[in-house]
Structures are given as C-alpha cells and as structure tokens.
C-alpha cells in the first residue's frame, strides 16, 4: 500500500531537491502535482483542498523562498503537513478503565469489522494477556454470529452467544453483565455493517452505544475506499463518539488515501492497520512513519520492530555474518529464511516496508506465497545436508528422489532451485546494503530494547 503515492510524491519532491532556487511558479506547479498525487491516491477532495491551502500558505510565506535549500524546505513542509493530519505517534487502544472494558466496532458493510474483532481479541490475549470476550450484535447478515463464533474459537476468546431475535442493544447490555460475571478484562462488541444514510440503522448503533457506553468506539474502514470516505467518516463521527480508526485490507495495492481522509475528517487517530485475512494480520499504526513513507523514505522502523518481534535473532545474525563474509546463500539459509518469512506473514508484507524495494519484480515477490512456501520447505527437508549446501549437485536421479520424498513433482524441485538461485543473486546485491544491515540491526537491538518499544519518529539508519 501507499506505494503509488510515495512514488508520485517522491518524483515531484526529487525534482525539487535538485533545485537551488524555488520560484512562486515552481511552488504552484509543485502543489498542482501534489494535489493530483493525493487525489490519485484517493484522498478525499475536501481534505486535499485543506492540505494544499495549508502548504501553499506556508510555502508562499517567508521561509521557503528565502531558504537556501528551498527543495528541502518544501519536502519538509509537505512532510510536516502530512504528519499534522496523521498525528505524531501511535495511539494504542486505551484499556485503562474498570473491567470489563467495552470496545464497540462500527462501520460500513464488508469493511472488516468481524475479522478485526477477532484480530484485536487475539492481540489482546496473546500480547497483553487479557481475558477477552466477544459478542455479535449483527442480527441481519446471514451467519454473522456464526462467523464471530468460529473466529472466537480460533483465537481463544470467550464467545458470548446471541440470537437474531434479540435487540442489538440488549445483546450488548447482557454481554457486559456476562463479561463482568466471567471476569473478562475486555469485551469486544461486533456490530452489523450499516450505511451512514440509513437513519434507522444509525439510530440502532447509537442505542447500542448508549446501552454500554464503550470505552473505545472504533470505526473500521476499508483502505480501498475512495472519495466516499469523506461522507461516511463524517456521518459516523457525528453519530457516534468515535475514539479511533482501524484501516483494513492494507495488504493490497490500494494507495490508501482513505487513511488521510478519515483521520482528517474525524480528527480521531488511526490505531491499527489490518494487513491480511488471518487473525494475526493486525499492526499498530505509526502515523509519522506513514508520512515518511509517503515521501519515499520507507517504513523501516515498523519493519525492524516486526522483525524484532518475530525473527529468531540467532538465525538472523548467522545469516548476516554469512552474507557479510560473502559466503553463499545456500538452501539451508533459504529454508530458514522462508520459515522466518512465514512467521512474518509472507515476503510481500516484508518487502512492502523496505525503502526502494517496491521496485522488486512482482514475480519475485509473489514467489514466496504461503502454500508454495510450505511446499518448498518440504522439498528442502527431503534433501541431504550436502545437497542443501551445494545445490549444484542436484541433478536427475537426486531430483526424482527429492520430489518423491516431498510428495511433489520434479518441476516443483526445478522451480525451487531456480528461485533459490534468483534469491541468491538478490541477496548478493543486497549483501552490502539493505537486508544485511537490517538483519544486523535487529541483532544489535536484541536485549537493548523491549519488543514494540522502539523510539518512534526517527529513522534508525
């Protein structure tokens, strides 16, 4: 996500960086480009207008024109203005209240409320050791309650049953009592999708809210949303005292302008990003990083943080040392890397965050998808240690044996070997730059900082 906006803005900004002097015409032209870039990224028009006029005012004012490096100054201006809209640091879910702390989920149809409910539950259970209850107030969508029930089972949340003959406000009220009785720390209340123009349905969610007075009310919005984000966000914000936003489906190639729109219009912080269908695909949102990312600096911080949490540090360190020493990247390394990537939700989400990596051919990115990864690991498992270290020896009869051993076809073995050699080439290229450095950084950080507590705001390298 965000790539296209990034590219577009960085191109404009790059042109500026080269310029020694910036004229008024230059500023106007740049702002025109920025306006188009933001609109192409699906930022809502009213938000774009506010943004542009704020930047224009400052740019035409004293500083920029007088500045010795006006290009830099302009970049900073756009960056600062983006940060101003997005907020400065991550705002976590606020659970500081008398338990059970109620969290209400609201949003349009299909935005991802039910899935996000399960993701949040999982996060709170696993990372904050909370006892979490979930309940569905969706009496309209077929099998909605069943969906939440299944997900609750998967993530180990207490599921409070409800039926379609109950009123949503009653369901929620009873759930609070039940959560208290069962000593739950948090109660997550899922609601039916609704359109902001459906007055009865909006009245209904207000009733649910009034019945339980939730500590957090999260507006769940699809990252692919276009201009309508402005209408829906303001209507939900008017109807409910929202406390935060969750932006879902950020794992695609949407430009994600909705994040800016919703944040600006509601004034409420984006607290989480949903980045996949599985229940672990939820990340805290770091607005400052997004501003940097939009301008093309890459979201290195959150990558480091994620890698830090999930990567086996010894493994990473070993790999880094090896690459640094210029030694080959063998199949054993390939396997351990795939295993780690699996832990992190696939290569796609990793690559996404590295600066300059968005240019990696899609072909390479997509080669490491889940199912294939599992198959590839199985194939490597069927090799001897010697074969893993020296893949060149794998020919005819060995291939057949490996294919049989892993329950695959020879073609799959061939594909793996080809991909490995591609990766090998890529690793070589990155050896001195990105990946090795990153991995080393992770190694260094180990023991110095508790996971998830990296100092925000600054790029570490």
């Amino acid at each position, binding site marked *: 996500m965000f790539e296209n906006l990034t590219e577009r803005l960085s191109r404009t900004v790059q042109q500026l960086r080269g310029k020694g002097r910036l004229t008024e015409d230059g500023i106007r032209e740049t702002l025109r480009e920025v306006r188009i870039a933001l609109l192409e990224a699906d930022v809502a028009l009213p938000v774009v207008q506010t943004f542009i006029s704020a930047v224009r005012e400052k740019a035409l004012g004293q500083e920029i024109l007088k500045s010795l490096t006006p290009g830099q100054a302009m970049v900073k201006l756009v960056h600062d203005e983006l940060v101003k809209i997005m907020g400065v640091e991550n705002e976590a879910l606020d659970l500081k209240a008398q338990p059970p702390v109620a969290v209400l989920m609201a949003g349009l149809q299909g935005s991802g409320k039910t899935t996000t409910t399960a993701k949040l539950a999982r996060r709170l259970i696993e990372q904050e050791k909370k006892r979490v209850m979930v309940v569905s107030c969706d009496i309209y969508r077929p099998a909605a309650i069943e969906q939440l029930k299944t997900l609750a089972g998967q993530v180990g949340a207490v599921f409070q049953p409800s039926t379609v003959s109950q009123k949503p406000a009653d369901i929620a009220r009873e759930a609070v009592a039940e959560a208290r009785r069962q000593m739950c720390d948090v109660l997550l209340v899922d609601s039916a999708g609704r*359109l902001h123009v459906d007055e*009865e349905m909006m009245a209904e969610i207000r009733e649910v809210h009034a019945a339980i007075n939730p500590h957090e009310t999260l507006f769940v919005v699809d990252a692919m949303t276009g201009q309508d984000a402005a209408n829906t966000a303001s209507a939900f914000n008017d109807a409910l005292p929202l406390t935060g936003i969750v932006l879902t489906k950020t794992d695609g190639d949407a430009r994600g302008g909705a994040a800016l729109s919703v944040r600006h219009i509601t004034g409420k912080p984006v607290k989480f990003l949903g980045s996949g269908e599985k229940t672990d695909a939820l990340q805290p949102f770091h607005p400052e990083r997004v501003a940097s990312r939009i301008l093309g600096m890459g979201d290195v911080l959150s990558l480091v943080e994620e890698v830090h949490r999930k990567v086996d540090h010894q493994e990473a360190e070993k790999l880094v040392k090896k690459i640094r020493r210029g030694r080959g990247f063998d199949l054993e390394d390939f396997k351990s890397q795939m295993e780690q990537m699996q832990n992190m939700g696939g290569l796609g989400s990793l690559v996404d965050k590295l600066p300059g990596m968005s240019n990696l051919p899609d072909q390479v990115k997509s080669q490491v998808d889940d199912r294939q990864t599992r198959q590839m690991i199985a194939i490597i498992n069927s090799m001897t240690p010697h074969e893993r270290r020296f893949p060149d020896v794998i020919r005819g009869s060995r291939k057949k044996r490996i294919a049989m051993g892993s329950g695959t076809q020879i073609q799959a073995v061939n594909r793996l070997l080809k991909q490995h050699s591609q990766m090998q080439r890529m690793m070589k290229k990155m050896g001195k730059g990105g990946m090795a450095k990153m991995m080393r950084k992770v190694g260094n950080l180990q023991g110095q900082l508790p996971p998830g507590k990296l100092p925000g705001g600054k790029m570490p390298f």
Partner: protein
Amino acid sequence: MLRIFRKNKNKPGAVQDVQLRPAEQSGLDPLEQRLEDTRRQLGKRLGALLTGRSSIDEDLLDEIETTLITSDIGVQAALEIVENLRAGISNRVITEPKQVLPAVQAELFELIEPCEQFLAVDEGKKPFVIFMVGVNGAGKTTTIGKLAQRFKEDGLSVMLAAGDTFRAAAVEQLKSWGERNDIPVVAQNTGADSAAVIFDALQSAKARNIDVLIADTAGRLHTQHNLMEELKKINRVMGRIDPEAPHETMLVVDAGTGQNAVNQAREFNQAVGLTGITITKLDGTARGGVLFGIAHELGIPIRFIGVGEAAKDLRPFDAGSFVNAILPID
C-alpha cells in the same frame, strides 16, 4: 434460445434466519427516496450555478470538476472532461450555461453505454455457469443470493456452489441464502479445496439438469498471486466437465472503492477473463464513478447494480440513470 433477465418483481422472501432491517420491515421503500435524495443534493448544487446566469463562469466548471472527482471517476479523467468543456466553450460549440451539463452527460453516457449489456442466460447451456470473483467483502455472496432468487422467479432451476472454503462461516452464509430461496447448495467443510467443491457442484448440476449454477469464491485481493492462481485452477477444473464453463465470470465491485477498482478489474480480467461486472452498495452516497475508468480501459459489460442487502435489491445496470446519478441534472 436466449432469455433476457427480467425486471425485479419485488417479492420479499420468507426469511427466518435473520432479521429484516428496519427499512425493509417498514414496507415502504425508503431506498428510492434515499437514492433520489443523494442525486438531488448534487443536482441542486449544480443547478444553483445555472439559474439566473447568462454566461458560463469558472464556478460552474469548478463545481463540475468537483462533482466528477468526488464520484471517483479519477482526477485525470475529471480534468480531461473539464478541459474538453473549456475547448467547447472557446470554440463556441457550447455558448449557454444550460448546454454545459448535458454536454458532459453525453460524454459520460457515450463512454459507459456500450457496457450496458444485460446478462443473458443461454438455456442451451445446462447448466449455465456463473463464476463470482472479487476482493474481500465486495458483496459476492450477497449478490449470489440476489441472483439466485431472481433466476428462480424467472422459472429457472438454480444451484449454488460454496466455493469459499476459507472464510469463517462463508459456507453457512451461502447455505442460508440457499435455504431462503429453497435452492440446493453444494458445499464441503471450511478448508476443503475450492476447485473440488465447484467441480462436484458442476457434476451434480449436470446430473440434475439444473439451468443455472452459481459458484461463490473466497474474497481475495488481486495482488495475492497464489490466490489468483487458485481461480485459474478452478476455471481449468470446470473446463474438464464443460469446456465452455464458466459462461459468465462476474467481478463484484464495491461502489465505495476508489481508483483501486481499476487495478482489481485489470488483474481479475487477466487471471480469469471477466465477462461481467456487478457494482454493489450503490444505495449509499458512493457513486461508483470508477466504472468509467474500467469501461474505458477494459470495456467489460456491466450487468447489475446492488442497492441494498435484501434479495430484491439488485437491478440491471442502466447507463442513463447511472450517468444521471454521477452528474445529475435537476
């Protein structure tokens, strides 16, 4: 023998497993009112710039640009349209304010009209297979429920295949639509192979001489390579039973989607060759302008619009009223 999809008869189904939304319970149709309200509001804003003015001014052109951009038509397209308009004005092809909106509407209509092609169920194909694809939460399963009811009302026998074997309770959701319409649903458990479920369904539909088989699939982002491959595999597997199947591959797009919908259409088209599009959730304030970009680039027929969550809330796509909702003339 071709049968054209007939207009909706507004027959509310007997629903036991879910509640009707308040709007549906009340019997009146507030939807019409709401759609009309949204259109009117825009129309008023534009209209205000027309009344009592004898010359075309910048305000009007700006308002047109704004109206187009906020419909998700895309900023470049909007700028281009307004540029054309300016050219028309300076060439004195357009001289009066009241000519302006019709001129833009005509341009929009010309672009989208060729895509107005009703879905024709060829009764020579038994079954006529409809393959539903799209990103997560777009409205595939609901649209299947709506289609199923309408085909049934048209006197066709229908079967559904629960090809979404991934998402929690996706199978139950489709089954519930099947039960409501008293239509058989072929399903296996969550986690089963989607292609296998659809293969079974096609076999069974053939054996039972079913007219229409509609296959649901799990929502997937078009950037997920392996999941797009899975769709291709489903296509191949269907082809083993009937080389012509599927007869319709329909992309479901959420009207709220911004420019990403063009990527969706492009990628799904490349993977499985789209033959139709349904745009859902047009009952909100989203106007689905991104369809113009899709029409321009890919020209895929647009079959239906979804205007609500009930089975009756599906209408054949009508280019004229669609254009008038994008840029209304009051």
